[in-house]
């Protein structure tokens, strides 16, 4: 069932992107990887994307700008943020960015996966 869903990963750390792509693919998602915000936005514009999993610090365009750009186009796209920074006072904690979940690095791919299931309304496998 998740294979109907297309996940866009924005992450400049190749090894992390690769592992997450592998994990989510293994769990049945269709996955596309972008190395920065600009590339992710291009992918978002050209493909049908169901959810975004993004890093915050990236070259060319950071995660926060990317999210802002996407929210301008789609107020309901599920967004999962992975960050290496403390996010207590982050603007992303505001209600208006929802549906949005924030996870600190190192992230647990199972948690990312289950969060995507929940946000996309996919029933968890037994």
């Amino acid at each position: 069932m998740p294979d109907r869903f297309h996940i866009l990963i924005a992450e400049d750390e190749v090894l992390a992107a690769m592992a997450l792509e592998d994990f989510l693919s293994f769990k049945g998602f269709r996955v596309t990887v972008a190395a920065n915000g600009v590339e992710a936005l291009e992918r978002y514009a050209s493909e049908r994307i169901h959810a975004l999993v993004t890093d915050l610090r990236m070259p060319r365009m950071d995660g926060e700008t990317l999210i802002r750009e996407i929210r301008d186009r789609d107020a309901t796209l599920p967004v999962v943020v992975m960050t290496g920074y403390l996010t207590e006072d982050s603007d992303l904690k505001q209600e208006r960015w929802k549906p949005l979940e924030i996870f600190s690095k190192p992230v647990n791919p199972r948690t990312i996966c289950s969060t995507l299931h929940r946000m996309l309304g996919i029933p968890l496998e037994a």
Partner: protein
Amino acid sequence: MAVGLEELLDTGGFVPHGVCLLWRPDILMLHVASDVLIGLSYFSIPVALIYFVMRRRDVAFGWMALLFALFIIACGTTHFLSVWTLWTPDYVLEGLVKLITAFASLATAAALWWLMPRLLALPSPRELEASNRALELEVATRREMEARYSSFFNNLGEALFIVQVLPDGDFAYGAINPALARIGGLDPDQLRDRRVRDAVKPELADLVIPRYTACRDSGKTIDYEETLDMPAGQRVFHTMLVPVKDAAGRVVQILGSGRDVTERKRLQEEVIQTSKLATLGTLAAGMAHEMSQPLNVIRLWTENTLTRLQDNLLEPARAEKALRLVIEQTERMGKLIDHVRMFGRRDGGGMRSFRPADCVQSAVELVRHQYRQEDIEIVEKGWAAQLPVTGRPLELEQVILNLFSNARDAIIALRATGGAAGRIMVAVGDDPDGHCVVIQVTDDGGGIDPSVLPQIFDPFFTTKEVGKGSGLGLSIGYGIVDGMGGRIEARNVDLEGGGRGVRFTITLPSQPVSSVDREFSHA
């Protein structure tokens, strides 16, 4: 024609002089009284003259007075003979005495004229009095000056000393001031005129004699820092030696001053440490990101592998790839941790010889990844730097990191105002003359206001908003580079492609220094 005594006293044929006066008693009395009085007076004058010459042995031309005495005695004798010839016609004797008198008079007169210029040159009492007054004034002035300088010498807190260079080239203490006596627990009287090697402990002599020798041989002022064991404990002195030369240009004396900089050194080290901690603080955020990256990769790959293992879908090749990745990432983290650990260390390691290019490389590696996240590219060029320099590698790395951090802040500030920036150019190379290594860090962050350029190395000077910069980074950097005998300069540069930025140039001398102490020669 010899004249015998009898012939001389032969009065035959002559008449006494009294006959000419017709033996008139009144005229005789007049002549006798006058001649006797003149004769007595004349005879008394040489006595007075001789007495004077005997008493005043310092009188110039004393022999002249004696000649004068002889002349007057002769004159006096002629007068007594005039009385004698009134009754006894000893005219030959009288004539001979007159002849003697004539020669004495002639000699005295000639000597007097011969002496005249010299006598005129003698200072008059009035002149002597004036010169005495001038001398008294001079003495008073000198006393006052001496009091003033001895007050300097005796009351200054700085340790002052005078070292005599003996004819054999060895050194002896001339004088030391109370401050030095107090700090060093020395007795000025016991030290005076004693050879340095005999006057102080051998360990101290071994430390100071090479310095005195350097000053004596170079004939130049030298200054240096030295750590000496004093009764009050180990003290650091900034000592200056000034050579004093004789007319032939030989160094005969060395004037020394030593300022106790122990406290200042301690504060300086504290400030360096504080700034290091501050730099560490700004790096901490970046470091958290740096650490979270490999951790994230590890977590993702292990979870990935575990999931496949649980589902019995793990191929050995995939497991091996995952484990290798994990090992690589732990190594990456290990390096980061090592770096932070060394960075926080208090002394930053000892002084040693190292290649600055390695420091630059290490600094670049530390921030490259973090800066890439912020779209700041570090462009390296010209790594043809082989010459070694002497210092503490971690301190130099701290200086370079600080320059990177400033460059980054400038770039971000320029971007905030809509400008395009994002490159930090770093270059290391040996100077063509082979004596220096030059490190350049250039940003495209718009440059510094030329009016504040002269102040940027001042402590606590900052152009950043409150809370962003301590204002210590560059001043600490300046101190570190200076400590390595080098210099750091900043100027605005126009870059290829139209950008503008600041270029920091660090020039470090390539000279292996064996001692921790630094020494400068003043030309």
